[in-house]
């Protein structure tokens, strides 16, 4: 655990939890009880796959959302519904389209009762610092994505927040612009030009976290839980090809692909005391799985995860669900951040389209309980058909509504590929295919 002086802690989360109550009394947990301390003087990155709940965690820390349980302490005092002196830079920029750049940046100052002349002075100064001098009277729709995010940043920083939160600020930008902005952010931070004491960055991009952050917190999913929390000891500027950098990225991949203790596969003995989680399907398409296996076949059947990601120019967010899916189906083995084809995986990669479907079907019925359940239920009916709502209700008990819908979509997609059943979207009916 990194040492954060208790006296320095600006923001602290104690047993912070987010869950949804079911009508039958059960709970769907989105964020497991989490403890977190944000101290001064560092850039902290919260890293995790998309949809794991890190944005929800950010909103609970900033007071925008209420936690289901637990407390957020601001300088030792519980938040209790107010907003602390923080600012957020949003993924979609969140600029007011009807206000000019200057008016957008002045708006938070206006909200704090600063007089017009003083407002203008401070806003112009900060716009100059981010390099938007000359664009004060422009409207957001005239600006490029990078410039819009600069405005978002200027607006966040003009009120001198104690902690600057950034919610995937570079995800909506193209690669080059994102790179430029990251560099500028670092420059401003290292030159102490940003009047803030800490930066809390939420991202799903592993490399971004390692480039920028002094401390990285890795969040798992289902439910969200801190898997790792460590200091990055690298000096700036950080070389992406340096040994230590690559080591860190590898380590994070390892952490993210570590099986969780509670993820007991059905049939295995339940680990004492830990609740068994309903297995969650990763959102990957059979096409993507096939592609990954073919690529691995090309590389003699094994490779390093982070190297694979770098060469395919894929982010962890896109690659990991495919890896997880292939792993569940038994086509891949993951060990210490390395992936290796199993015998079944090799057979799949070498087969033609029709054989692949057959292999996929076998693997799905063996390893994916949900699809097995669906096939059994369909077989039990005389007309071999069921409405999709039937399975939606089953999933609803274990996942939030959005996630339940997505799980069902993925399952139906896999089932159709495996020729397990047909699906009519208009009527919502699943019909078993006759073999």
């Amino acid at each position, binding site marked *: 655990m990194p040492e954060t002086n208790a006296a320095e802690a600006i923001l602290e989360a104690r047993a912070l939890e987010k869950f949804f109550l079911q009508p039958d009394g059960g709970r769907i947990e989105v964020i497991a009880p989490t403890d977190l301390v944000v101290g001064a003087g560092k850039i902290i990155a919260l890293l995790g796959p998309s949809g794991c709940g890190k944005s929800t965690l950010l909103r609970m820390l900033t007071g925008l959302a209420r936690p289901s349980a637990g407390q957020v302490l601001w300088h030792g005092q519980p938040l209790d519904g107010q907003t602390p002196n*923080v600012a957020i830079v*949003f993924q979609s920029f*969140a600029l*007011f*389209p009807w206000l000019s750049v200057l008016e957008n940046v002045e*708006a*938070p100052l206006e909200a704090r009762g600063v007089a017009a002349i003083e407002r203008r002075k401070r806003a112009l100064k900060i716009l100059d610092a981010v390099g938007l001098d000359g664009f004060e009277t422009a*409207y957001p729709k005239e600006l490029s994505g990078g410039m819009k995010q600069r405005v978002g940043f200027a607006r966040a920083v003009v009120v001198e927040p104690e902690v600057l939160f950034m919610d995937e600020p570079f995800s909506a930008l193209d690669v080059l612009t994102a790179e430029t902005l990251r560099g500028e952010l670092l420059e401003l931070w290292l030159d102490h030009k940003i009047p803030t004491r800490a930066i809390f960055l939420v991202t799903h991009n592993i490399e971004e976290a390692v480039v920028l952050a002094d401390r990285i917190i890795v969040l798992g999913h289902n439910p969200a839980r801190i898997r790792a929390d460590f200091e990055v000891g690298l000096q700036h500027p950080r070389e992406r090809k340096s040994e230590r950098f690559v080591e860190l990225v590898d380590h994070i991949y390892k952490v993210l692909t570590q099986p969780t203790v509670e993820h007991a596969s059905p049939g295995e003995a339940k680990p004492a005391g830990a609740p068994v989680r309903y297995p969650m399907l990763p959102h990957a398409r059979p096409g993507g799985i096939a592609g990954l296996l073919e690529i691995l076949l090309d590389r003699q059947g094994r490779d390093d995860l982070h190297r694979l990601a770098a060469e395919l120019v894929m982010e962890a967010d896109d690659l990991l669900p495919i890896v997880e899916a292939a792993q569940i189906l038994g086509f891949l083995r993951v060990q210490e951040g390395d992936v290796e084809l199993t015998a079944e995986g090799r057979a799949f990669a070498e087969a033609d389209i029709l054989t692949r479907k057959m292999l996929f079907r076998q693997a799905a019925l063996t390893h994916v309980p949900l699809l097995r359940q669906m096939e059994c239920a369909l077989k039990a009916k005389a007309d071999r058909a069921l409405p999709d709502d039937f399975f939606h209700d089953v999933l609803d008990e274990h996942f939030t509504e959005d996630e339940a819908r997505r799980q069902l979509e993925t399952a139906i997609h896999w089932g159709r590929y495996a020729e397990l059943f047909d699906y009519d979207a208009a009527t919502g009916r699943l019909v078993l295919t006759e073999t």
Partner: protein
Amino acid sequence: MTRPLAQGLFRRRTWSRLTDLMIFAGALAVFSAALTIGRTWLGPFTPVAELSTSPRALPGYAAYSLARIVIAYALSLAFALVYGYAAARSERAARVLLPLLDILQSIPVLSFLPGVMLAMVALFPRRQMGLELGAILLIFTGQAWNIAFSFYSSLKAIPRELDEAAKIYRFSRWQRFTELELPSAAIGLVWNSMMSVAGGWFFLMACEMFVLGRRDFRLPGLGSYLQTAADAGDTRGILWGLAAMIGVIVLMDQLIWRPVIAWADKFKIEQVESAAGEREQHSTVLALLRRSGVPAALYRKVIAPAGERITLFFARRAGQAPSPRPAARAAGWKMWLGRALAAALVAALGYAALRACLALQQLTSAEILEVGRGAGITFLRVSVALALGAAWAVPAGVAIGSSPRLARIAQPLAQVAASVPATALFPVVLLVLIHAGRGMGLAAIVLMLLGTQWYILFNVIAGAMAIPTDLKEAAGIFRFGRWDRWRKLILPGIFPYLVTGMLTAAGGAWNASIIAEYFHFRGEIRSTPGLGATISRATDAGEFHVLLAATLVMAVIVVTMNRLVWQRLYRLAETRFKLET
């Protein structure tokens, strides 16, 4: 070489000076008109105003009508802001307020007439003001509901991250309203305001001249002018009145609506400059106003400083407030107030329901039969009108929407034609049809058609424009025949828009039936059996229990059709026929 530049500057400066003068003159004219109108309204009680049939009196009458419509619109806007805000802020309130809005929207204007008028005359027994307020409130009932609905929808549609930005940067309630909520609702408010004001013109005749029980009421204005002329069979008078009304509407369109629409472009919640294909709204009036010094000076010297002071006041007040009191205490008095209001509402509704039941008991079986038959006949009539409207509007709309060249010519024409209130045209239509030997039955369908076909047309045009080019290209490459193209590409493509248009048209047709089926023409009453005729006749004769029954039946039919038919089709449009990737 500076001479051409100087000349250009000089010309621009003269133009802006000219605009300044025109603005001053306009402001002066409006002020003096307001004074004159105010003097009449606060004057002695003249239930049946003397109407001059000379065309020279028309500008005066136009001014009166315009004043009523504008005031009614201002009231509608204020109501809509409060109502929409209340419904958007509280889930529980929304559960009551939204269905209530649905029902209110389905009640025709005339059904409010007895209640409103009696209330006003009771409040101001011997004053002209009472009558005027009543007319204004009547117009209000035709304008307020759709603006309220639009404001509510806009509030609900605010992008989540903008909402979060306002929260995290501690916007006060006032700043939130002026910098987030109102601007995001601006475009919807503008378009709905245009529709509402058009609705005001549509029902003007019924609101300015009517019979209540045994009393005749007539207020000076364009609506009563037209109705008097129609009653007397004065063709010249009808045409002059029509010309005056169209003139005022076109003037309002050019001087007010076009500039406002062009100005409201800046409130579009799109993050990128619109593609070259979409035309930006232009308005010469707006351009002139921008160049003139007066509006800018007014803004700089008066509006901006005042706005600044109000915003800072609220900001500082919000900053000083203690951190949000724990939930229990805050709910305290608000909860009791809410409960008291709810109790009062329930009590009022209970009382009204009781009175209604008592009134309904007076219905004779003949009257019940009349209402029932009328409902069936008007239902058929509305369906026929909708079918006819769709039959011509769909092909025309698709043709216009698919060809930008055709659109450039046809759209402005259609907009002018649509802005003429069909009720004003009705006497002319009747004249023509009576000459041809046809009766009110056909005339009623024609009037419904005239009033509502534009909703279908404009929506279909928008739908046809929205069909993506690559789908059209695919249809071309695969050599779709005409039938195939319509069945597989065009009709599914425009389906959501068509449903919206038909839904609005149906509501409008039901509402129009009160005038379409019962009309004072040439000294006699021309009517055809139907629910609208029943409502109008009952109002004329003062048979309030029949009026109540007929209104209830109409409201029930419209709301039921909304739920059973239109909302289902809408849901289908949202799921199966949505054209997004």
